Structures are given as C-alpha cells and as structure tokens.
C-alpha cells in the first residue's frame, strides 16, 4: 500500500476520462454505422484526418470549437468517399474501408506538413462556480474540457435514439434486413449514407480530441491504432452504446492505471501490466455479451434495390 499512496486516485480518474474520450467517440460513430448494416474499417483513416483538419483549423482561427467542427466535417467528407464507393458503386466494404484508412493516413501527413511543432489553442474547461471547486468530485466530474461532456451526452443520445425512437427503429431495421426495410418503403441507401456520415464525423471528433486536447500537438500517424481499437470495441460491446462507454472507460482507465502502477514501481511484471488494458476490456465485455446479443444481420452485405 506504500507504493500505491503515490498515485492520486482523483487525478487518475480525471485522466481516465481524457484517455477514453477519443476511442469512445470513434466507437460510438462506428456503432451507428454498423447498426445500419455497414462495416466501415476506415475508422483509423477518418480519425487521423479529423485530427489534422481540427488541428489546422483550430490553429488558423484560434478557436478549438471551429477546430472540432472542421474535424467532424473532415471525417464526414472522408466517410462520404466510402459511402459513394459502397452504396453507389457497390464496392466491397472491407476493401473500401481498408483503402480509406490508408488514404486517410497519407492525406493527413500531406495536410499536416506545415503543422509540426505548432501549439494548438487550449480547449476551454468546464468551470462551474461551486461544483468545480468541490473536493474529489469537482476535479473528477466537473472540470474537464467540454468535449468530454459532449461525448457522454452523445452516448446517451445514441442509446435513446436507437432504443426509443422511430428513427432508431428504422435504422436498426435497415441493419437487420435491408430487403424487408426496402419493401416497407424505407430508403436503405439514404439512411446508410447518413449513418456513414455520422460515423465519419464522430471519428473525426475523436481524432481532433487527440491532437487538440490529449496530446496536444500534430504528429504524423498520431492515432497509431486507436481507430482499430474503436472498431474492436464495437464488436466486444455487442453493438450497444452503454457497453461501448463501459469498454472505453475500461480500456482508457486500465491504460492509464498501468502506466501509473509502473511509475509507482508496483512489483507486477511490466509485460502483464502492458497487456492488461486489452485483456481486461475483452474479458469483461465478452463475459457481458454472454446474453443473446449478436451482430446486425445485414452487416457488411451489399444492398441494391434490384436484387
């Protein structure tokens, strides 16, 4: 216990919220895309494009808010490319998604040429007169940057939308059985394009959170795999918004915790600490998915009205 005393649990919890936000945003977007029956493996590419679009705009305008909006737009534009390929040209979704990742990585390093070593404008933190000053909870809950709260609100919104609204029902219908949805008169392609754009915008926001808040700087290839983790998270979270949040917190939390335990000199071999974020997240979510949850039935299948 002597060792653990050097870790401040309040700071640790606060870091957890920051560490989990990028993958939370990206995974939430991909969740909506996959619930609409589309598998977009380009999350990494959309994230990094969002990271540089957001960074560049924030630096040029001096406003992080404009940066985040540009990041969402950048991610969505890249996603539009994927939508055109898969929804109109009926290209293979796996191949198109992988191509999107490679394209996004290349495009972002091109766009980012002049932005290495520049500092972004600081993103405002929530500052509530009384709440932010509370001991413990004030630091953990009420003094983050606004994107943390935006991401949490988005989780609630997506959850409620999918579960309780007609729009959510239609989206799920398209993802479960696109022929039936089409026969009922729903515009399968249009709904899917909207979902893909939403996914791109979310991934872009996640990327910009890395470049504007968590790191904060632009470095080529800076997402380094976060998009793939977000993709895996959606599957392990059985396509449920609440579990995506849990998974992101677990992954972000254990990642930060293991670094803190290392710094504190805990006598657990570093190899085990290093793999713990992946192991624990997968373990918890797999145990939870022992219920009847499964992938959307039309996931990854090509739809054309003539078939």
């Amino acid at each position, binding site marked *: 216990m002597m060792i653990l005393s050097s870790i401040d649990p309040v700071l640790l919890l606060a*870091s957890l919220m920051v560490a989990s936000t990028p993958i939370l945003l990206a995974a939430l977007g991909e969740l909506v895309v996959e619930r609409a029956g589309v598998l977009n493996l380009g999350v990494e590419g959309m994230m990094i494009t969002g990271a540089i679009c957001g960074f560049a705009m924030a630096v040029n305008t001096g406003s992080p808010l404009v940066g985040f909006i540009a990041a969402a737009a950048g991610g969505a534009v890249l996603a539009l490319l994927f939508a055109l390929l898969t929804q109109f040209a009926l290209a293979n979704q796996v191949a198109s998604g992988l191509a999107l990742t490679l394209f996004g990585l290349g495009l972002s390093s091109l766009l980012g040429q002049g932005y*290495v070593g520049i*500092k972004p404008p600081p993103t405002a933190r929530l500052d509530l007169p009384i709440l932010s000053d509370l001991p413990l909870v004030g630091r953990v809950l009420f003094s983050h940057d606004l994107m943390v709260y935006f991401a949490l609100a988005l989780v609630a919104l997506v959850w409620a939308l999918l579960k309780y609204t007609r729009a959510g029902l239609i989206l799920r219908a398209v993802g479960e059985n696109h022929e039936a949805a089409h026969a009922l008169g729903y515009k399968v392609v249009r709904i899917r394009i909207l979902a893909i754009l939403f996914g791109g915008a979310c991934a872009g926001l996640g990327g910009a959170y890395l470049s504007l808040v968590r790191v904060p700087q632009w470095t*080529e290839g800076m997402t380094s795999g976060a998009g793939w983790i977000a993709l895996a998270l959606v599957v392990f979270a059985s396509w449920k918004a609440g579990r995506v949040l849990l998974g992101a917190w677990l992954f972000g939390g254990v990642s930060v915790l293991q670094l803190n335990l290392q*710094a*504190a*000199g805990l006598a657990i*071999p570093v*190899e085990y600490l290093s793999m713990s974020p992946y192991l624990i997240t997968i373990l918890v979510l797999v145990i939870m998915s022992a219920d009847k949850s499964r992938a959307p039935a039309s996931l990854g299948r090509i739809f054309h009205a003539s078939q």
Partner: protein
Amino acid sequence: MKLTHLLTSAALALGLASAAVAQDKTKVGFIYVGPIGDGGWTYEHDKGRLAVEAHFGDAVETVYQESVPEGADAERAITQMALQGADLIFTTSFGFMEPTLAVAEKFPDVKFEHATGYKTLPNVSTYSARFYEGRAVQGHIAGKMTKSNIVGYIASYPIPEVIRGINSAYIHAKKVNPDVEFKIIWAYTWFDPAKEADAATALIEQGADVILQHTDSTAPQAAAEKAGNVVTFGQASDMSEYAPFPRVSSIIDNWAPYYIARTQAVMDGTWESTQTWDGIGPGMVGIGEISDAVPAEVKEEALALKAAMADGSYHPFSGPLNKQDGSVWLAEGAVADDGTLLGMDFYVEGLTGEIPN
C-alpha cells in the same frame, strides 16, 4: 498454375529490367519504423537520406518506406526494396535485426546496414551511436534541475540500448544529486503519441519534474508544457520547437556523414561489413543547445562533461560502479568494455524496479 507461372516470370522480367536500368545510378533504400514527420528518430534518419541525395545529386537515387512495423511485415518490406533494385539498404530500428539478416541471406549482392543491432553477415553491417554519452549530459542537467528529486523516464523496449541510456543518465544524475530517484515507465512502443503523453502525465502526477524520454515523438514535450513546471530533453532530434522551456537540451542523432560515407563505399566497390559505434567525438551524437532555463554554471559543467567525452578523457561508465544487486561491476579506475555495454541487461546500483524480460 499457368497463370501464376506467367505472372511470376513477368514479375521476374520486370525486376531484371529495372535492375538493368538502375545500373548507372546507385539506389539506396531506407526502412523506417515511424513516420518521417515524427519529429524525432525517423525524422533524423530521413534528414540523413536527404543529405545523401544532396551530396551525390543525380548519381544516387533514394527510396524509403516509413512506418514499417517491427516483425514479420518488415521482412516483406525489405524484400520488396531489394527486389526494386536497391544496392544498399539501411534498416533503422533494432527490431529489424532478424528480418534484415533473413533478407540479406537471399540477396548476397545487396549491401545492408542495420541500425543499433549486433548481428552481422558478409553483406550486413551494423551502426549505432553512443547515445549513452548524451544521456550522461542529460543526467547531469536533470540531477541539478530537479526540485522534487524525482526524474521520470519513458523507456520504450527493454533492449541494451535503452538500458544503457537509463544507467548512464542515472549515474550522472546521482553524482550531482545523491537524493535523486528515477521512476521508469516501459511504454512498449517507439511511437504512440497518445501513450507517450499519458506516460509523461502519469510521471508528472507522481511528482516527477524532469522527464527523460526514449520514445520517438514530441508528445511528452507537449505534456510537460501543459503541466507547466517540468523539464524535458529532445530525443533523437533537437525538438527545438519546445525550447527554451520545457526542452532545455537534447540528444541529436547525426546520421548524414555515415550515410554519405557508406554510399560512397558502395559506389567505389570498397564496402565491407563493419560494426560502427560512434559517439560525441566523431559527431554522430550531438548535444542540442542548452537553453537559458539552465543556470549558467550547470550549463558550463554539462559542456565540460561533453568535451571530456568527446576527447576520450572521460568514459560515462567508469568505476567504481556496482550492479543493482550490490555486486561489483567496475572497480575503481576500470572502464566498461564495449562487449558488456552492447549486451547490457542490468541496472546499476540505486535504480529500483526490475527490467522486464
């Protein structure tokens, strides 16, 4: 069967044709572990590549592949470069050692140069820099600058090069500040800005006010800057965009002279398998401008230390030194031999924690 046969011979013919075209130009290839814009390790190797281009002009063509993962895929990338007709290939990360050897055996006419490794073949050389000399200067400044007496160290992989750096920095920090303590985090990555930033933040939250890094990106610098009162050092590259504070100095890798000399050797037909390990003296390791955030007398001492290592009058691993378990490593007056340094797998006395396997 027929089709694949046809395709193979077509590919072979293509390969031969491009090899024939490439005869007049010397083709030099580079395999990078990170992106060329990482601002650190790979960035400096790429500066070396550009220096080769500038020096030889049209006589040389360079090619590179960035962000090649260490492991099975590296072999594919190196093979591809050899098939493209490269005459000389630099593989610039420790983890490319086995893939480089495997490809080199298949292409006896191509010369290979592997950075920071220890295995050679008739057509494979190794080269590295004595970064630990730079770490000694860092350790000295770190020991003088820390107020909390806690120095955070972001290590990458538990390989001899990284362990040497930790030991060298610790020995020289301890020398000027007996109360100094090192907190070490193994990131298990060379390049992951988010993780590097998280590691720096974790160390800062646990009291470190000096951060040393052995990872490639500038993310820890940004994290230190955000925290405010934390000192950092540029790693592999000057990282001067974070000067004068938090970055107070840096270790700069200078590969250009070596890359030019080796390319020249291939052109002259004098290339031989060698093991190069140069330090501050020959200029392979540079110490970046020590900023005004460092007190003048500390700066002077650091520069004196640098000069003593450059002219060979001082070796950073000079006895008396004990290993972590208290056993004697170097007696009074003894100096570490290169063999021990190249295979270093132990901490010196005073460091806490265990080196992962």
